[in-house]
C-alpha cells in the first residue's frame, strides 16, 4: 500500500509539472503579462520598462525553468500582484473553498442517495420519473442562475440568509446548496443504476428468501455494493467542486481558490496559477487514493485484488 501511495504521489508531481508547463505556455502565448501588470492607462514605454524590470523579455523557457527550479525546492514564489507569497495566498483562501466543497458534497449526497434508492426501488413508476426529472432540472439549470434564484428567495424576499461573503456558517448555506444541487443529479443517477442492477442479483433474492426485512436488504446488502462506483464519483465531484467553484464563488462573493484562480488567469499572475494547478493536481491524486481505499473497505473483492 505504501508503494502504491508513493507511486501515486510521484505521478501527481509529474502530472502537476506537465500541466503547469502547458498552462505557463498558454498563459504567455495568449496575452502579455507586462501589459496586464502596467494596467489600462499605461503607455507602451511604461510596459517596456516593466517588461525589462520583471525579466519578462527573457525567453519563456528560461522564465519557466526558473519557476520550476524554485518550485521543486518547495518555493512557489510570490504573486506578481498581491503583496503575498503564493503559498500564503492559497493557505488563506483554501479554507473557504474546502468548507464550500465539503458542505456542497454533503448536500449532494443527502439529495442523491435517498432519491437514487427510492427511484430504483420504485422503478418505472411516477416516483422514479419524478426523481429523474429532478436530476434533469438540476443538471440543465446553470448554477449561477440557481444561485441567483436562491439569493432572490432566501436573501431578498425572505431575508433569512446573508447574500454574500464568508464571515459565518450562514454565509455558506446558499452557495453550498447551489453547488450540491448541481452535483447531485449525476450521483443520483449512478446510485439508481447501481441499485437497479444489484436489486436483481441472486444474493438479494436469497436475502429476501431468508426473510430479512426490506430495510436490511436494501441498506445493508444492496446499497453497500451499489455505492462503490458512487464513492469513486464522489471523489471526482469533490475535486471538481474544489477546482471549479469559481461561478459560485463569484455569485456569492466568496474569496476562495476558484475565484483566486480565475483572477490569476485574468491577470496572468503565473506564479499563482501554477501554484493552484499543482494544488488541484494533488487534490485529484489524494482524492482518487482515498476513493480507492474507501472502495477496498466497502468491497472485500477489491482488497483481495
Amino acid at each position, binding site marked *: 500500500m505504501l508503494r502504491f501511495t508513493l507511486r501515486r504521489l510521484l505521478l501527481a508531481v509529474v502530472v502537476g509539472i506537465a500541466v503547469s508547463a502547458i498552462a505557463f505556455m498558454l498563459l504567455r502565448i495568449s496575452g502579455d503579462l507586462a501589459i496586464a501588470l502596467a494596467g489600462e492607462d499605461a503607455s507602451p514605454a511604461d510596459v517596456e520598462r516593466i517588461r525589462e524590470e520583471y525579466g519578462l523579455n527573457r525567453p519563456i523557457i528560461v522564465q519557466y525553468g526558473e519557476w520550476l527550479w524554485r518550485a521543486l525546492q518547495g518555493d512557489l514564489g510570490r504573486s506578481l500582484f498581491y503583496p*503575498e507569497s503564493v503559498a500564503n495566498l492559497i493557505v488563506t483562501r483554501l479554507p473557504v473553498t474546502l468548507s464550500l466543497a465539503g458542505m456542497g458534497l454533503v448536500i449532494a449526497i443527502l439529495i442523491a442517495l435517498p432519491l437514487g434508492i427510492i427511484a430504483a426501488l420504485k422503478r418505472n413508476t411516477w416516483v422514479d420519473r419524478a426523481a429523474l426529472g429532478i436530476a434533469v432540472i438540476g443538471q440543465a439549470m446553470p448554477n449561477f442562475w440557481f444561485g441567483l434564484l436562491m439569493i432572490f428567495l432566501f436573501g431578498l424576499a425572505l431575508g433569512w440568509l*446573508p447574500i454574500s461573503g464568508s464571515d459565518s456558517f450562514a454565509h455558506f448555506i446558499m452557495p453550498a446548496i447551489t453547488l450540491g444541487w448541481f452535483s447531485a443529479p449525476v450521483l443520483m443517477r449512478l446510485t439508481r443504476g447501481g441499485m437497479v442492477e444489484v436489486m436483481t442479483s441472486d444474493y438479494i433474492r436469497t436475502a429476501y428468501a431468508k426473510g430479512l426485512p426490506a430495510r436490511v436488504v436494501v441498506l445493508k446488502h444492496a446499497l453497500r455494493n451499489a455505492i462503490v462506483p458512487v464513492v469513486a464519483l464522489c471523489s471526482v465531484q469533490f475535486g471538481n467542486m474544489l477546482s471549479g467553484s469559481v461561478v459560485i464563488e463569484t455569485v456569492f462573493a466568496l474569496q476562495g481558490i476558484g475565484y483566486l484562480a480565475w483572477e490569476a488567469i485574468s491577470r496572468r499572475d503565473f506564479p499563482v496559477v501554477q501554484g493552484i494547478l499543482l494544488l488541484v493536481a494533488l487534490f485529484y491524486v489524494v482524492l482518487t487514493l482515498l476513493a480507492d481505499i474507501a472502495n477496498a473497505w466497502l468491497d472485500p473483492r477489491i482488497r483481495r485484488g
Partner: protein
Amino acid sequence: MRRHFLGAVALVAALTAGAPAVLAQPAENTIRWFSDTEPANMSPYFNSTREGVIFGFHVWDAPLYRNLQTGEYEMHLAESVRIVDDTTIELRIRDGIIAHNGDTVDARDVVATVEFALDPANQLTNLGRTRWLSGAELVDNRTVRLRTPAPFGPWQEYLTTLLVIPRASLAGGRDGMGRNPIGTGPYRVTEVSPGQRIVFERFDRYFGGAKGQPEVERLIFRRVPEANTRVAELLTGGVDWIWRVTPDQARNLKRRRGVKVASGGTVRFHYLQMDAAGRTGTEDNPFRDVRVRRAVNHAIDREGIVRNLVGEGADPLHTPCHPDQFGCVQEGITRYEYNPARARELLAEAGYPNGFTVTMGGYRERPWGEAIIGNLRAVGITANLQWSQYDAYQRATREAQLRLAYGSWGSTSLFDIANSTSYFFRGSADDLTRDPEVMALLERGDNSTDPAARREAYTAAIRRITEQAYWAPLWTFPLTYAYNAQLEFSPAPDEVPRFYRARWNR
C-alpha cells in the same frame, strides 16, 4: 452569460418592488461600499485599478488638488509652487503634515517618493504618476525641486497625482506598502484582508487642505464581483453604496424607496481606431483611404447607441479626447453625422461599392461593440469581432495585428489631452496613424508650459485628426451609482467618488 445575469437582476428588482425599503444604517457613521474589483496591492504605485485610484485619493495626498467645480488647481500638500525654469518646478510643502504613523511629512518625503518611483529596482507597476519626472532635489526640509526631462505642459495636472508616500512606508517596499499602507490622507487604513475587506478609519490629525475634513468615520470596502449580488445587497441594506450600475438595473432601482440612483460623467471615452498608417500592411488596406475612414464615421449611429444602450450620463463624442480635458476643442472640428447613405457613397468612391471585411478587436462593453458592428454591416462593412482580455487586445494593436480596434480610454482621470490625444497620436506603439503633422503639433503642445501656446497647438491637432477621420470617436462613458438615500453623495466627473465629502443625513 452576463446578459442572463442582467436579466436576472432586472427580474429580482422588479419582483421585489413592493418589498420593504432598504435599511438605513447611518448610526455608525460608516459607508460600506462594494465594487467588482479589488486592488491586489494597496500602494498607488503598485496597482492601476480604478479602485486603487480611489484608495489613493482617500489615503494619500498630492502637492496640488484639482477643484472639480472650478477646474482650478488648489494648493494641497504644497503651500506654494513656482516654475524655476523650463524643466524645474519648486514646491514648498506645508508645515505640520502628519502621516498616519505619527511621522512628520515634509519635502524629504517628496524626494524619497520620486527617487523610489524612478529606481527600476523597485519594479513599480503604475508608472503614470511619475513618468514625467527625471528627478527630485531637496532644497531644505520644506522645499523640493522636481526635474522634468523636457518642458512639460500639463505639470499642474500631474502634480495632482503625485501621491507622497512617507519615508517609513517606502522602506517596506512593494509588499510592505501593500500590507501596511501609510499615507497622510483623510483616512488611514486599519485593516487589509485581501478578498475579505479593507477598512479605512477617519484620520483625526488630518491637515485638511483642499480636501477638507471628512465627516464619515469609517469606510469599509469589499469586493463583490457579481453585479446582481451587489444590487441584492443594496436592496437588503447589506451595503450603502455601489457603482457601475447598468442601465436596466438603474431603471429598476429608481423605483425603490430608500435607494438613490445618480449618473455622472467620467473622463473616459470610447473610440474606434483605424490603421490609417498601414501598419498592418498597405496592400488592400481600406483604412489608408480617408473616404473609408469618413464612411466609418458616418456609419455609426452614436446618438442611437447612446440613447438605447450606453445610457444616461453619456454623450456622443466627435473628438479624440474628452471635451472636459484641457485642449480638447470642440469648435472648428469636422463632425460626422449619422448618414448611412453618405457612408455607402464614400465607400463606393473609394472603390468598395460592396464593402469589405475586417477584423475588429475589442475587450470591454461588448454589446456596444456589437451595435457598432451592426451599423457597419448596414453600409457593407463586415467587421468580425475578435474579443479578448485587455492585454491580448493591447498586444494585438501594438504589434499591428488589428486594422480596426474598439477601445476605451480613462485618461487616468486627468483633465488634459496630453494624457489622451497625445497618448494615441504621438508616434507610440499605440499610434495607428503616424501623421507627422499631428505628431509635431502635439509635441509642441505637450512641451510648452504656456497654456495659450498649448491650446493653439492642440486645436490645430484636433482639427487635423477629425478632418482626416483618423478615429471614429464614439461617446463619453457614463457611470451610474446607487446608494442609500440617506447618504449625501455627489458623483464626481472624474470616476473618483469622494467619500470624504459624503455625509449621512440623520
